[in-house]
């Protein structure tokens, strides 16, 4: 008995831990075809959220298990021998029988996923903390430079309307001991409510539009630079928006690590969710890409492409929707709205499914 999020990547694609890369590639294809969008065997069994989680885990299996070094790190993490040195298994007995018989239910404590030891990711994560001078505020003006006009005119209330915490309450069904990392993370709940961090709204006129989403090079540019830009001409009238404070205290579990201090971040109502915005929210939460990758089980590769708006490199919209939803949830945003907004920006590249 294992949750989908607790099953190993090997269990997800139903191969033994010794499987060759060629066979793993085939198993990933097979799993993607079997459980992918519209699959007859899953569409009435699982919620769309669960299907999206499974799809992203299959993609994760592809990314991790086909990369020798990533695979050996992963093997070490889940406690199996490196696949290069097969175990002297007794004849006919797979090294790790898949699936495990139902009787061998793990101890309750063991069912909560063990995070990799801190040293695994801190080293990787540190260099990611760029843009130390990132300003505290995201501009309040709606991004008038959006390429897709319709998305800029999305009614404000539709994109960011409710205070994020309301949508982020941990699902009641979750156990704090065995919380799925890909879903709610109760331990991420703030140690202290960040109510005092609500900042007065900045004067909207002095803030510039966020970088256009098709300019990944502008990602790390501190905002003051953007002041040099001309005020976007066709900007819709800037309503006196009520910015929503998104900042919460950093999770206690992170306190012993070198993480950037959380910074208050205000997200304007009606803003389209670009990769850049998601990056800012993530950084305001003091999370590295690596940490988000581990918690959401979305590969870092995908996360980077999302934040850089590399639409071409991203998976199909039906998968991407689930991926963005779990990313947004990890950032304590409204997954539905963020995913809709993000996919809308992809324009015709995304199919109707995403805009539903």
């Amino acid at each position, binding site marked *: *008995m294992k949750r989908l999020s*607790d099953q190993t990547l090997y269990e997800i694609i139903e191969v033994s831990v010794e499987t060759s890369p060629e066979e793993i590639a085939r198993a990933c294809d097979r799993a993607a075809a079997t*459980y992918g969008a519209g699959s007859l065997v899953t569409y009435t069994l699982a919620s769309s959220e669960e299907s999206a989680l499974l799809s992203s885990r299959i993609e994760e299996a592809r990314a991790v298990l086909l990369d020798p070094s990533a695979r050996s790190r992963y093997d070490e993490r889940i406690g199996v021998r490196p696949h290069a040195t097969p175990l002297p298994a007794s004849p006919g007995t797979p090294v790790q029988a898949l*699936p495990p018989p139902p009787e061998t239910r793990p101890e309750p404590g063991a*069912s909560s996923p063990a995070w990799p030891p801190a040293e695994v990711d801190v080293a990787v994560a540190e260099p990611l903390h760029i843009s130390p001078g990132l300003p505290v505020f995201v501009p309040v003006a709606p991004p008038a430079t959006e390429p897709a006009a319709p998305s800029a005119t999305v009614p404000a209330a539709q994109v960011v309307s409710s205070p994020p915490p309301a949508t982020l309450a941990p699902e009641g*069904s979750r156990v704090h001991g065995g919380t799925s990392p890909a879903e709610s993370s109760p331990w991420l709940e703030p140690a202290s409510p960040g109510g005092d961090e609500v900042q007065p709204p900045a004067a909207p006129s002095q803030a510039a539009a966020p970088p256009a989403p098709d300019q990944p090079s502008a990602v790390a540019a501190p905002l003051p630079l953007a002041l040099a830009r001309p005020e976007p001409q066709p900007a819709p009238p800037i309503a006196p928006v009520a910015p929503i404070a998104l900042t919460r205290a950093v999770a206690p579990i992170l306190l012993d690590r070198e993480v950037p201090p959380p910074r208050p971040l205000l997200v304007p109502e009606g803003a389209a969710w670009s990769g850049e915005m998601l990056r800012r929210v993530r950084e305001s939460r003091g999370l590295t890409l690596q940490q988000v990758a581990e918690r959401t089980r979305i590969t870092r590769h995908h996360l980077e492409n999302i934040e850089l708006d590399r639409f071409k490199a991203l998976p199909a919209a039906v998968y991407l929707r689930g991926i963005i939803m779990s990313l947004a949830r990890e950032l304590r945003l409204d997954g539905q709205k963020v995913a809709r907004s993000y996919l809308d920006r992809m324009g015709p590249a995304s199919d109707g499914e995403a805009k539903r």
Partner: protein
Amino acid sequence: MADGPILKLVQPTDAVVETPPVIRGFPRVKLSATRARRILSVGGGKGGIGKSLISANLGIALARRGQRVVLIDADLGGANLHTTLGLDVPRRTLSDFIDRKVERLEDVVSPTGVPNLGLVSGALDNLEAAMPKHAQKMRLLRHIQAMDVDYAILDLGAGTHTNVLDFFLVSDHGVLVLVPEPTAVENAYRFVKAAFWRRVRNVAQVFGYETLLHDIMEGASFRSPVDLVATVVERDPEAGANLANQLAAFRPRLVVNQVRTPQDAEMGHAVVAAWRKYFGLEMEYLGGIEHDDAMWRAVRVRRPLLLDRPDVPAGLAFERIADRLIAADQPGRIADQA
């Protein structure tokens, strides 16, 4: 006692296999060799997917292997198993037993023309029998369990009514039938989920976990048994361990009917894997049955396929499944199959 829940419980491994635990509400059976060794029920939620034909042909296949088999038409209100066997409406039916016109279930068993195979024909023209009272259902189940046969095969009706689920849950082999169509797959999942949650309820009732489960499930809905068990473990480790043990025994046997392509047959494995992925539970794939024109021709002439055309692919598929069931029931494996 008659109001107790109906289910098979996991027995401690050191217990004698034939000794059912003495539990409030559990149908008491005579501890003798005269007990139906295996109860096999055929369900699947949707109508028209071949439950009756599979029951009839599996019955014939098992009887031909020397097993004493009785087919019981448990499709209360929609009985037609006799027709699939080419029989007219038997003189005595389940109605007579339910109405207590006869005392013993054996008294309503009709011969089928196949050696070793008997039929308890379903209730006809009796609205009361279509919705038996709980006590009547318990009596029927007690008698089924006590029948002097090797296999009692229950042909269940469509839907997820508690009557259907209870027959499924009391079986040693709960056979889940689906055909490779979205509607059938959807209903099969609904059926097997409903059966699972009824088992949770019944286990809770037997072991007195009702309050515990009620508290836990009040403010939350559990999609997955894993979450439920984890929560119970937190409150009461012992109850959680027992619950996990009892629930892990829920292990339906899957049959994919009307297989037209190799992909259709593969679907059985995919359903088993998906069930494990999302529900954390096991299922066993018994195999696929080929879609076969000989099948509907046999239905038209009211002759079971295995008597009419035993050589066609679908006929061979029934033989394979029967072999698998018998192999699974070999002494020594019985404990695993509870």
